[in-house]
């Protein structure tokens, strides 16, 4: 008796009918980053970075240099008109080093090993042409890997996530705290920067597990116990909050045994993503769609997977992809319900909450609002089964397909079989023409 929605073997809307298995890693693959239109890098616990061609699945490069697992990876492409375009990637590892690589040549550009602790996150501020590394302290670097400035030792937990905010600010998640820093250009030199701690926000009850910027005005954080807070990006005030994803007591259909085995892990906000209207949250095994305007969850799939959802992403075509520890990748479509369902949605699911504790009026108001607004739901349109272990992350390449990486050391490139077939035909006829075998044709 599984409450996980399943889809049969017939998946008309699932375009991925061809796959390529990319082998190379010898340990869990945790990160995939896109470098340009047809290249991506993968990294994981074996400390090796691979560069792949997303079209052919060809292994372009193997970057060796780290001795421990990779903890963060960020692409850094120069947008300077003056320089010729170079694609760099920055990788941080548990061996307390950060290496900058040149993706074209596969060369190691530079290595920094002056860290006191592992760098857990990397952010590139393209606008300022600097990048930041977050660990137990926050460092600001320029392209040439000169340390511009750094903060003092912050917390033992260290910074786990960084997000860029307007007005040269960054938000850093350090444990339960959210710290806002501001970068200030120093007066004496053009390259000089100094960093200033602006604000401490301590609204989360537990460790902040995800942090995402929605637009210039808003960013969102999610915590380990299932709190979701929407912040104003300019004055860093809380706009809205949602914190009872985990509150199963109000779910009428949840069985007691499920409640018993409920653990904080299952309510943790694993990953957040957003488009202009909505924030999509991977909470425990479920997926929740939070509308920023309506300030409430408009659709959800509480058990979208058999196990924790690790990564979600919104596609342009109202589709959503999620991957999970259960080894599957699922494709969802956000659909508008044509008419109100016969049985009303259990309103207790996702109440809107004001500050602090539950408020009955607010609850009722939310109910009303629900009735007046269109209903949405997440429809499962396809699933991709290939990995034999947790799918850590995926990368959507549009037409080229989808790359997924997993704890089974594999990367799988999922492709549209129809498109690949016609591409192959194209190549075939090109080759025929080249070989002068065209007389075969007619």
């Amino acid at each position, binding site marked *: 008796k599984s409450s996980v929605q399943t889809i*049969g073997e017939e998946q008309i809307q699932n375009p991925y009918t061809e796959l390529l298995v990319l082998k190379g890693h010898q340990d869990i693959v945790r990160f995939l980053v896109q470098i340009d239109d047809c290249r991506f890098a993968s990294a994981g616990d074996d400390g090796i970075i691979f560069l792949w061609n997303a079209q052919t699945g060809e292994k372009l490069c193997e970057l060796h240099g780290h001795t421990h697992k990779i903890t963060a990876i960020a692409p850094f492409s120069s947008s300077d008109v003056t320089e010729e375009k170079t694609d760099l990637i920055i990788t941080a590892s548990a061996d307390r080093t950060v290496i900058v690589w040149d993706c074209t040549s596969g060369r190691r550009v530079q290595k920094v090993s002056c860290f006191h602790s592992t760098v857990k996150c990397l952010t590139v501020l393209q606008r300022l042409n600097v990048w930041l590394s977050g660990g137990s302290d926050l460092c600001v670097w320029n392209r040439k890997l000169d340390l511009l400035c750094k903060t003092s030792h912050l917390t033992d937990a260290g910074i786990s996530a960084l997000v860029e905010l307007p007005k040269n600010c960054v938000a850093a998640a350090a444990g339960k705290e959210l710290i806002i820093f501001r970068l200030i250009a120093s007066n004496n030199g053009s390259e000089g920067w100094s960093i200033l701690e602006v604000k401490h926000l301590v609204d989360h009850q537990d460790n902040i597990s995800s942090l995402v910027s929605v637009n210039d005005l808003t960013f969102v954080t999610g915590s380990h116990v299932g709190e979701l807070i929407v912040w104003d990006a300019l004055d860093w005030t809380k706009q809205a909050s949602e914190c009872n994803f985990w509150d199963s007591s109000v779910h009428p259909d949840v069985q007691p045994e499920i409640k018993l085995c409920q653990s904080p892990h299952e309510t943790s906000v694993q990953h957040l993503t957003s488009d202009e209207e909505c924030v999509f949250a991977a909470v425990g095994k479920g997926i929740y769609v939070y509308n920023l305007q309506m300030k409430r969850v408009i659709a959800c799939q509480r058990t979208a997977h058999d196990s924790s959802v690790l990564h979600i992403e919104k596609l342009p075509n109202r589709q959503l992809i999620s991957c999970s520890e259960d080894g599957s990748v699922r494709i969802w479509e956000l659909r508008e319900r044509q008419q109100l369902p016969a049985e009303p949605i259990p309103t207790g699911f996702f109440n809107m909450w004001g500050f602090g504790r539950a408020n009955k009026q607010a609850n009722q108001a939310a109910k009303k609002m629900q009735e007046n607004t269109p209903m949405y739901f997440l429809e499962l349109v396809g699933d991709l089964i290939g990995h034999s272990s947790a799918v850590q992350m995926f990368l959507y390449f549009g037409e080229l397909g989808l790359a997924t990486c997993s704890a089974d050391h594999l990367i799988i490139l999922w492709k549209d*079989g129809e498109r690949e077939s016609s591409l192959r035909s194209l190549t075939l*006829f090109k080759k025929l023409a080249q070989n002068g075998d065209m007389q075969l044709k007619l």
Partner: protein
Amino acid sequence: MISAPDVVAFTREEELEDDLYREPPLPEEYSVPLFPFAGQGANPWAKVAGSKFTRDFILISEFSEQVGPQPLLTIPDDAKVSGTFDLNYFSLRIMSVDYQASFVGHPPGSAYPKLNFVEDSKVVLGDSKEGAFAYVHHLTLYDLEARGFVRPFCMAYISADEHKIMQQFQELSTEFSKASECLKTGNRKAFANELEKKLKDLDYTRTVLHSETEQQKKANDKGYYTTQAIEKANELASVEKSIIEHQDLLRQIRSYPYRKLKDSEFHPYEPECALDRADDQDPTASNPAEPGETHLYTHVPSYTPKLIKAKSAKCFDKKLKTLEELCDVYFFSQTLDQLHHIERTFRGDVCYLLTEQISRALLKQQSVTNFLFEDVSFLDEKPPEKQYRGCQGLGQDVVDEKCLEESLGPKVVISLGSYKSSVECVPIKMEQEMEDSEEPKMSESVTSEQQENLDYLDADIKGSISSGESIEVLGTEKSGSGLTKSESQASLPVSASPQAGRSKAGSRRTVSEDSIEVLSTCPSESLIPEDFKASYPSAINEEPYADDDEGGLRFAPRLNPGVHDGQDDVSKQESLVQVDAACCIGKESPSFPEPLGELGQKACEEDGVVRIPPQPYRPQEQGLRGGFPSQPDGLSGGLLPCELDPRYLTGGREVSKSSLDECSDSTSYISSAASTCSDRTPSPARGGCAAGDRHRKRAGQNALRFIRQYPFAHPAIYSLLSGRTLVVLGEDEAMVKKLVTALSIFVPNCGAYAKPVKHWVTSALHLVDFQKWKLIGLQRAVSPAGVNALHALSRYSRYLSVLDADSKTLRCPLYKGTVVARLADHRTQIKRGSTYYMHVQSILTQLCSKAFLFTFCHHLHLPISEREPEESVVSRRMNFLKLQLGLANEDVKIVQYLAELLKLHYIQEPGQGGSPLLRFDYVPSFLYKI
């Protein structure tokens, strides 16, 4: 794939069927009486009176200097094979047609004995009395103790089917050359070793003699030499001479020109290899010598020189070395392997061999599609013709004057592109007693034809003299060389005149009353069969109906710039030929100063038999030949059904052997083992894929059983054809493997690799496995691992079809097409595995051609104009598949899958392996039960 299923389908039904399909035996009174002469294991189409052996075999004989011709061994080494066939007698015959020039002796102008690296001779002969025809390959090995240092051997492929020998002549020649080369290489090595040891002996002897002489000198104070002293001095001198001679021999044997071997695939005897082995022995050779070691040629690490008596032992006192001793053990076993390979390769009826050759030649042309369902291993094989050409090319490098000399021989002109060769009598002078026992006519013909023979032996003569005692020499390859002059004819002027050749080139036949044999591959001969028939009763008269205009060979002078030089050389060479009776074996044997063989492409060209491949592409000629009426007993090459049927020919022994194979269906063989068949040979097998052939047959048989037993065979086969991995799940390994074997014939190859079939897996499957394998046998186990495996099956169920062998269920997508129905009709009348295999191959070929059309039609995949929308291309594509190719429902997917494979194969760069691609569909599966 391109076999002739329509022909073979009419062959006799096999006994391999289940009892279900066997018809009840007729009551005694209705049954047709058996062929009167048929004993156990005879078939009525066999050349009844003829062959006394059950199947083709290879005989190795030696012309022993002590006991004369004697058989050494047969392959297969089984007394049953040769049966009542008189091996001794036949050895005598084949050894007596040795045309190779083996000569070692003291040529004038040379102080020392000279070794000749003699080229092998290749002869085809027939023996009417024994009903045996043989390809005979003579070779000479060196033995220090033998007379003239040479030991003549021959290897013969003996078959009851003359056509087989004639048509496969070139292949046989190529294969036997390899074996011979192997033997000779080993022999050179052994001979060199022997010489080294002999030299050590001589050296030691000299030292001893020397010191003795010195002692005598000292002891002798009389001022004159005693007779003993003189004797000793003479002895010493002869030993020294002997040393020089042996050193020279050693130098000669070591200077053997190691030409690059023509066949890159066959290198058991590379000189490097031999050297390596020698090196291996070196460290041990430095060990202290074992005293009392007397055997010179055993491979012992150490050697103690011993004193050599002044008088060597008489020829007959000593025991001659065995073949194994003559050649290194390693090379000997390599040779045996090669001979076994030959035996396997040429088994079975000639029509099978020819069909195989034709289909392979045709398949090679289909480079775009042939990888799909063909045995990849045999596609890689090089055809023998090519090897031969390669050898010619290489031979050019070593062409020297002696080579040009060969070009003196008359040239065979093949007119009108048809294969014609004249029938020429080539009588072989045998033992005098034998000749005496012949009718006078016979001996007359021998003598009268002697001259012709001498002149036109070169012209690749296919001659026949038929008599109870005669040997028909059907052709010699050597003959092209023009050097086949025996020493007794050395004084005769060499005739290079085309006229002379022409006058005798006509067909000529001698017929004795004992037997009538027409050994001809010349279609023009069939124009006058009545004459011949008429001559049958009186038979004794020689009846030359020479008709050179129509008849076959025409000789033309060679347009070779080297002719004149060559002529000079010949005379020079002749002057060199001086026969030392003591040293030279076989006076009749012409002498060759140098190896001739790999050399001249001219030699090859002149040689009709070699030059013209066994004309597989001219079936009409074969038809003519088949219709040749003078062979009522079925010697003809016509396609007799019974001979086509390999199972029919299978002897019981073979069957039981093959049933030992783990994948075989043992029950199905029981009946055939008990059957009364056995003409001579089991299955035919080409080019070393005997195993593959057996596999095919077995797979076909198992597949037949599968489609009859399982009503859901169609969707299972559809899964395989559409590229969906089929997992056969079961507890019993043998049963699963049998099913996998059966189904493997439907699996398209993904590239030029091995078939994507895994017979037996015990661990859980992963996604990567489905990329690699399209057919997997999986163990069902109760262990945790087994549970995992089952779990993986359900997890990846969308990529899989699962055939449960234990509960007889199948879970796979629906199939509603028509192609598989034709492919696997459970009511099929085909009973034999190999026939069914061919049926499958022919349908798969059709599919391949459809896939080819589909893949390479430009407008089906690309828009005709730039503005054409993708949808119209798609609809055009579907229309083509459905209307043009006539594919229904799921059949479209089969062709699409094959087309994808073709595309991938074509696009793929030669260097990089094909990307492991997994294509799949999201289609629902259904559970089928019996």
